[in-house]
């Protein structure tokens, strides 16, 4: 013979199951009786989602890393300021990196010696001079 508390628990479980069954039946009936317009709207939503999947499949599987990063950042609802801040930081670093003061000076020893005409022509090219100076600095270090 069950104790009164166990009997109450059994009764409560039975009541809960009966309530669940009642509510679930009514919910099932409600979706089986949706209006045609509503069903059409739902089908349209599904089609829109599946078309996104098809678009994604057509794209190159190797999305550029940059666009993947942007996509992830832009989907982050809590930090909309990230992209403008990152852009400002990149611009600031680029401006500083390209400032005139950052260009190393020419090594004086290179200018003192006599150079062939061909080499002199090359040396007049600023990029070659910079590269040469950098290599000299790396060798010293």
């Amino acid at each position, binding site marked *: 013979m069950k104790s009164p508390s166990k009997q109450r628990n059994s009764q409560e479980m039975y009541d*809960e199951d009966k309530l669940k069954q009642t509510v679930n039946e*009514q*919910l099932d009936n*409600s979706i089986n*009786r949706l209006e045609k317009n509503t069903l059409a709207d*739902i089908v349209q*939503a*599904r089609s829109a*989602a599946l078309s996104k999947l098809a678009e994604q499949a057509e794209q190159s599987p190797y999305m550029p890393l940059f666009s993947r990063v942007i996509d992830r950042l832009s989907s982050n609802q809590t930090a909309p300021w990230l992209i403008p801040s990152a852009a400002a930081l990149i611009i600031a670093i680029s401006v500083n990196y390209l400032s005139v003061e950052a260009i190393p000076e020419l090594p004086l020893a290179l200018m003192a010696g006599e150079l062939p005409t061909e080499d002199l022509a090359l040396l007049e090219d600023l990029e070659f001079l910079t590269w040469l100076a950098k290599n000299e600095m790396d060798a010293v270090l």
Partner: protein
Amino acid sequence: MEEFLVDIEKRAYRMAVLATRSHADALDLLQDSMIKLVTKYHTKPNNEWKPLFYKILQNRIRDWHRHQKVRNLVYFWKNDDADEWLPSQTYEAVLDTPEQELQKTQQQSAALKQLEQLSTKQQQCFLLRSWEGLSVAETAEIMSCSQGSVKTHYFRAVTKLRAMMEDDDEITF
């Protein structure tokens, strides 16, 4: 993926409608959730789609409610009609007697209205546990809460529903 969406879309729509009480908003949430699932998680195993989809939907519902709170604070002087309802509330006629049809319609409307009167968390917890048949652990994962919270929400939902149904329909459980 299409078969999965066809299987789940009506129930998901009903859950969204109960949470938002708006056909248009529910449709937006449903579409957003579907798009996120198919674009971000279509490579996951099939058995993970259902909990993933409902988690996405629950997050969307939560965001919608937060947005509504802010909107209501800003536009507090606007008097929205709280009783505005949806096309899905009307039902197509079936081959029943008028009395049977009326009784069915009233019962269905009553169940939906009673579910509406629950808080969003209790309502969604009940739907996920009872209607979808998800476990406590799965529901906790979907709703981003503890298993204890799920049990609490579910217990409160059942208690309130029982009380409402007994009051409204004079049904004893």
